[in-house]
């Protein structure tokens, strides 16, 4: 049992290697990064962070690219704005935040950074507003101060309409307050009349005074707080498609007009309190919906990082000296652009010259750098790691891939699920019935109050709120779990699913290699070869090289050289050594790779050779994701039949399926074969959900009833998917798929409950109100209560399964629409 790192909580493998005096005691750390961060925090006198934090910190990432791109005056002009007195202000998105103490720490660090005049961190949105003196500091220095304590920051894209979002939220809150306060006060003026109820103890003048006071206080509720209902009703009337707003607006307006008339003439009843309370409860439901929607939208914040909007365009493709600096939006398809090592790619395109690797984790969540050679695709916003590349632009600006993912999620909101369309139709039909019944009842009884009671009591408001709110809450819950819902209707399908078809590579495995076997080919022992391999690969950033990370002896090597796309070369004890592809090593060994060697084809071979001949071959395997086993068990526990279908060798697939306990498997399948497999299941009447990631999964994702794609997958796969599992802390979680099923089932159960309740209420209230058995204030109470029950029930969709903290989920989503620590 090893100790946990004081900073990040990971196990300490080399005890005593990294130690420092922090927060009053000698502490152990798991790595040099954590030690450096903790020492920096202690040196700044910010150790209080360790006392108040509620979650361990994220392990620092040493692979940050230099942020100097942000210092360019042209770049600065795009994300920063003048703040007067020669100062500059900008908004930064803070990343790797785990708990509120992180935010405190970040704020302190930002305020202490030299040249920074003001720094305010918003704890709800994880954004920092920073004002600095451009003559004293640069953006890269401010970002470096954040990185020194183990976090990351990037300028916020000012084109994202945060101002609109804030105004919308403030406006809704203000309306809610006006309606709530108006309702409370109007109730106080109405109370004496209720108590007196014909007793004659209330002087007529006093009653008239209270009525006037109620009128004065209901006026702002009607004129201001009801704005959304009236404008909605006006829109509906113009299209002759009365929805939920029409009966509400008519009911409120008619109720107010009748009460005002009664106040002026002194005859009849007033219902200012009922009207104001109805408006307050309806606005509360709408505010909740707004909060849930805004929270779901923030999941995609990380894509709103501002991408350096300038590029080095080559006037002459052969001459790097001809590069000129142009704004990225001025790029057009066909332009050639030089992307230097450590810079972000300015547009989508293909490599024309040079080999390197790119960090696409911003886009895909996959931490493994992707090798790039001439012909490879480059996506805007990704990071070029090793060598300069010349790329040919294919798409720029709004057409780029990062923009495409954001559009995918927006599509979810645009496409109305069948369930919602159905609810809308029912609501429309109900509205006509309500309007007809109200007029008929009003005419028949000769009492306008009967008509108003029908309008208010039976407005299909609860019916209209039943489904969208539950689905929005479910989407919000999923977004907290790192799942983007691209088609809300898929929740319905997921709740009905019987079978799950899983892909292997990149879905159940992490697409990251680990060492399985060492075979020696020369005189050197396996341990000697491994020590040499570790030393050689330590300088490489290739995905395969990560398999050699970790503790263990390393040979002493000199003159380490990275040959992109082929391997690593170095000098060891005066001899030249190489590790990498068979051909690369054969050039040094002087003989072709031993062909008699039979390696399991499921493994990937990495060769090692020196001047005198072959030394060893390493068999690497793509390891399963850490939560794959648990996810498979949970899915089976939910009563789903699992199938593993992969393009890999059948024996390898069968072995992997057995390891995870999946009984049905098919190996060696083509993309068409996968689709046929799903089709066969569907013909048996099964509801099939596909979980996949790769380009070759695209047909099968399209074929399945519902599809879940790994955020690490290709764009094509994501475009076909209904759910995209984003990476959390650098690791895409297959376990989030389990959450999708649980949330979907829960949401659908709640929708059914809501429908049942709202329909039952409306059916019961309509005849009673039409017969004049329900007074307007009872109608308002019943109507608001039915809506509130639906809203509260929908909020349960946000609670974690088995958590049973519906109230907490409700209050937190209500008060704090943006909370999501990720």
């Amino acid at each position, binding site marked *: 049992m090893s100790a946990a790192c004081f900073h990040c909580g990971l196990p300490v493998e080399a005890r005593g290697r990294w130690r420092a005096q922090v927060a009053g005691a000698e502490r152990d750390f798991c790595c040099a990064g954590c030690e450096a961060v903790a020492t920096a925090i202690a040196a700044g006198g910010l150790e*209080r962070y360790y006392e*108040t934090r509620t979650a361990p910190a994220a392990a620092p990432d040493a692979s940050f690219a230099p942020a100097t791109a942000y210092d360019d005056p042209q770049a600065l002009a795009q994300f920063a704005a003048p703040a007067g007195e020669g100062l500059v202000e900008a908004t930064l998105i803070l990343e790797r935040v785990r708990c*509120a*103490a992180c*935010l*405190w720490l970040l704020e302190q660090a930002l305020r202490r950074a030299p040249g920074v005049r003001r720094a305010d*961190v*918003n*704890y*709800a*949105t994880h954004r920092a507003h920073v004002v600095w003196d451009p003559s004293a500091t640069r953006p890269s220095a401010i970002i470096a101060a954040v990185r020194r304590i183990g976090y990351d920051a990037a300028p916020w894209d000012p084109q994202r309409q945060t101002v609109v979002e*804030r105004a919308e*939220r*403030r406006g809704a*809150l*203000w309306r809610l*307050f*006006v309606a709530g*306060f*108006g309702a409370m*006060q109007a109730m*106080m*003026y109405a109370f004496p009349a209720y108590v007196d109820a014909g007793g004659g103890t209330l*002087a007529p*003048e*006093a009653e008239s*005074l*209270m009525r006037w*006071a109620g009128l*004065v*206080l209901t006026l*702002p509720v009607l004129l201001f707080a009801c704005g959304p209902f009236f404008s909605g009703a006006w829109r509906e009337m113009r299209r002759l498609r009365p929805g939920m707003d029409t009966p509400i607006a008519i009911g409120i307006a008619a109720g107010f007009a009748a009460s005002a008339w009664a106040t002026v003439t002194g005859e009849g009843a007033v219902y200012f309190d009922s009207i104001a309370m109805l408006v307050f409860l309806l606005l509360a439901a709408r505010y909740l919906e707004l909060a849930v929607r805004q929270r779901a939208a923030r999941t995609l914040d990380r894509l709103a990082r501002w991408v350096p909007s300038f590029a080095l365009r080559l006037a002459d493709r052969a001459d790097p000296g001809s590069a000129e600096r142009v704004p990225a939006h001025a790029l057009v398809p066909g332009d050639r652009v030089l992307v230097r090592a450590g810079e972000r790619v300015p547009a989508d395109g293909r490599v024309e010259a040079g080999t390197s690797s790119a960090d696409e984790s911003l886009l895909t969540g996959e931490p493994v750098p992707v090798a790039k050679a001439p012909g490879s695709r480059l996506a805007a916003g990704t990071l070029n790691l090793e060598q300069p590349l010349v790329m040919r632009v294919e798409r720029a600006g709004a057409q780029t891939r990062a923009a495409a993912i954001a559009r995918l999620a927006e599509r979810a909101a645009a496409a109305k699920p069948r369930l919602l369309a159905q609810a809308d139709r029912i609501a429309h039909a109900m509205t006509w019935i309500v309007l007809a019944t109200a007029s008929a009842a009003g005419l028949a009884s000769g009492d306008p109050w009967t008509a108003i009671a029908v309008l208010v009591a039976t407005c299909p408001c609860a019916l209209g709120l039943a489904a969208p709110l539950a689905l929005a809450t479910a989407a919000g819950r999923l977004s907290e779990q790192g799942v983007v819902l691209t088609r809300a209707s898929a929740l319905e399908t997921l709740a009905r699913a019987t079978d799950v078809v899983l892909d292997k590579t990149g879905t159940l495995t992490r697409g990251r290699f680990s060492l399985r076997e060492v075979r020696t080919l020369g005189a050197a022992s396996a341990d000697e070869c491994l020590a040499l391999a570790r030393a050689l690969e330590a300088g490489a950033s290739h995905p395969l090289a990560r398999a050699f990370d970790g503790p263990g002896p390393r040979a002493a090597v000199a003159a380490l050289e990275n040959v992109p796309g082929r391997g690593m070369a170095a000098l060891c004890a005066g001899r030249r050594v190489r590790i990498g592809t068979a051909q690369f090593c054969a050039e040094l060994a002087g003989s072709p790779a031993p062909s008699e060697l039979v390696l399991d084809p499921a493994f990937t071979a990495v060769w090692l050779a020196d001047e005198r001949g072959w030394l060893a071959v390493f068999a690497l395997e793509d390891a399963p994701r850490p939560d794959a086993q648990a996810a498979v068990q949970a899915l089976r526990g939910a009563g789903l039949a699992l199938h593993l279908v992969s393009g890999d060798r059948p024996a390898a697939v069968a072995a992997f399926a057995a390891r995870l306990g999946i009984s049905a498997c098919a190996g060696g399948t083509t993309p068409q074969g996968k689709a046929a497999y799903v089709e066969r299941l569907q013909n048996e009447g099964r509801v099939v959900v596909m979980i996949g990631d790769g380009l070759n999964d695209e047909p099968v994702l399209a074929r399945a009833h519902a599809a879940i794609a790994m955020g690490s997958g290709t764009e094509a796969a994501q475009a076909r998917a209904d759910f995209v599992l984003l990476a959390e802390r650098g690791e895409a979680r297959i376990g989030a798929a389990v959450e999708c099923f649980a949330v979907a089932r829960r949401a659908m159960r709640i929708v059914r409950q809501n429908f049942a309740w709202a329909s039952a209420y409306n059916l019961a209230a309509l005849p009673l109100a039409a017969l004049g058995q329900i007074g307007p204030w009872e109608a308002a109470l019943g109507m608001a209560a039915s809506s509130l029950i639906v809203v509260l029930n929908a909020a349960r969709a946000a609670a974690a399964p088995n958590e049973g903290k519906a109230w907490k989920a409700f209050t937190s989503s209500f*008060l*704090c629409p943006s*909370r999501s620590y990720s």
Partner: protein
Amino acid sequence: MESLYLLIPLSVALVLLSGWVFWRALASGQFDDLDRPGTDVLSDED
């Protein structure tokens, strides 16, 4: 009963006043970040 003629207009005025106070608080951004005040009390500084 005569006191009502003073008290009720007074209460109307009070409601309008509190509405104005709430509006000021809203416009000043007090409700934009509801997570922070809960943690700020733990801080000795500022």
